[in-house]
């Protein structure tokens, strides 16, 4: 599989000495749905700005489908949804999309524009001036702008901020569909449950450093705990929790055991030596990305 983005030793420096990104090495495969996560000030937007050409790459290198970042060839393959929405004071929604198409050399693009306005539920305000739109509508317009030329790589910098829950679901369905059709997507978001559901791979950054990079499943597996719940047809006096190597406690009729994500349920049951015929129900609550995220960030802060 080809690489959509290849970042080598990227360093982004603001002013004389503030390093927003420190020697970042990262590659995103073509067709991936990739999540770049981190707290505020982690350096995510600096990475996206460097890929798009908004920031000059002074240290290190970035290739987009084999072309240097900020080259015209690379820019033609990229669609960008920036973190902040913009106004386009003098123009209407439909006009802005026609201009965007024109910048990519596409003059007759009504079909695509109609499709995007429809999918992003902007049809009713197609003639409205951008300045008259609500924050959520402007956000959707930003997405439509990024997609007018059917880019191969879509960069989404906090795209669902300010968008209501229902619309967010519609938006993510659309993004998933685009990804299935082959579009590579790089997403930064504060909604970790979104990243968990959408992204095949996730990178976590903080203070400009890459702290973790793995498949979402493996990241959860390595960095989270799951809660194993057992309903046993025995009284608490008849159950011995001491053979269990992991924290276990009674919660009403249930036994709750916190086990690392990578430990199998069978292993725990074997250790507990419970008579299987007495176990009437088993539930497993998987760990969430939020837990992994916090664990990684906190352990990095502890090292500092």
């Amino acid at each position, binding site marked *: 599989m080809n690489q959509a983005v290849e970042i080598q030793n990227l360093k982004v420096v603001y002013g004389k000495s503030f390093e927003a990104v420190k020697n970042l090495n990262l590659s995103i495969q073509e067709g991936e749905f990739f999540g770049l996560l981190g707290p505020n000030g982690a350096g995510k937007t600096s990475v996206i700005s460097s890929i798009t*050409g*908004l920031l000059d790459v002074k240290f290190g290198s970035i290739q987009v489908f084999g072309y240097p970042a900020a080259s015209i060839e690379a*820019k033609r393959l990229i669609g960008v949804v920036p973190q902040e929405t913009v*106004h386009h004071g003098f123009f209407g929604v439909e006009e802005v999309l026609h201009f*965007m198409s024109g910048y990519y050399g596409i003059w007759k693009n009504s079909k695509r524009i109609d499709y995007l306005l429809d999918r992003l539920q902007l049809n009713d305000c197609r003639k409205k001036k951008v300045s008259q739109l609500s924050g959520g509508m402007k956000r959707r317009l930003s997405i439509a702008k990024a997609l007018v030329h059917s880019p191969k790589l879509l960069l989404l910098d906090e795209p669902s901020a300010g968008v209501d829950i229902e619309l967010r679901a519609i938006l993510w369905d659309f993004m998933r569909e685009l990804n299935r059709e082959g579009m590579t997507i790089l997403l930064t978001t504060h909604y970790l449950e979104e990243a968990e559901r959408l992204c095949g791979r996730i990178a976590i950054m903080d203070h400009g450093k890459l702290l973790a990079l793995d498949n979402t499943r493996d990241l959860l597996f390595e960095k989270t705990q799951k809660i194993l719940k057992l309903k046993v047809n025995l009284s608490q006096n008849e159950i011995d929790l001491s053979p269990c190597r992991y924290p276990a406690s009674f919660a009403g009729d249930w036994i709750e055991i916190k086990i690392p994500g990578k430990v199998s349920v069978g292993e725990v049951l074997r250790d507990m030596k419970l008579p299987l015929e007495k176990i009437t129900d088993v539930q497993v609550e998987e760990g969430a990305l939020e837990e992994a995220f916090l664990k990684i960030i906190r352990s990095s802060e502890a090292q500092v």
Partner: protein
Amino acid sequence: MSWTLKSFLTLLWKEILRYLRVATQTVLSPVISSALYMIVFGVSLGSFLQSDSYLRFLIPGLLAMSALNNALQNSASSIIISKFHGDLQDLRVLPLRPITITIAYALAGWTRACLCALAVFGVGQFLLWISSMPFLEIQNVFGLIYFVSVGALFFAFVGIWAGFWANSFDQMNVITQFVVLPLIYLGGVFYSLDVLPAFWQKVAMFNPLVYFINGIRWSFLGQSDLSIQSCFVVSFGFLIVAALLAWRGVLKGSYFRF
């Protein structure tokens, strides 16, 4: 047609449409100020001086002032407003070369300058007609097209540089009010350089406006304070410098929202 040309024409058309959307401010308003100058200085002062020729002297100067000032305002205000709205960042991530952006903005400024020049010329002719004076004839059409175009492009380029350099409306005001406006008023719009003391005549030689205004006045009246050959050469030299400045502004300037 290549996609590069299409993207250039799209940006140019967007910029033209932008000022046409607010034509009351961008075209009508400067024409009205020029008309007022003509009435106050040309008609009133002319009759006070018992001279018919002052209005005829003034019209080419005001035409130049309106064209050049509007060329500058067009690119500068478009860029600074785009920075304020945040959509200037789009230009940086779009597949547009710096040279494409520079030329599109400059040509948009040139079209506005031409529109204002035509309108001021029309108003001037109307005022001559109601004052029972003969119409102003163009002595050299090529010269007029050359000096209006070179002057408008020069100022549009300066406006592009200023727009990318400035990071607030205040900074933009510093350039327009403290640099450009004095150059315009001291460039010989209202007077001939011959009336200035020798020292100020020498200082005026550093003002690019002097060459553009004299060139435009020469195209109408056939007379100039300076040698017309030097006006052709020096104004073109200024144009090249401004074009390089604008290109550097587009290449290195700030696209970020303020």
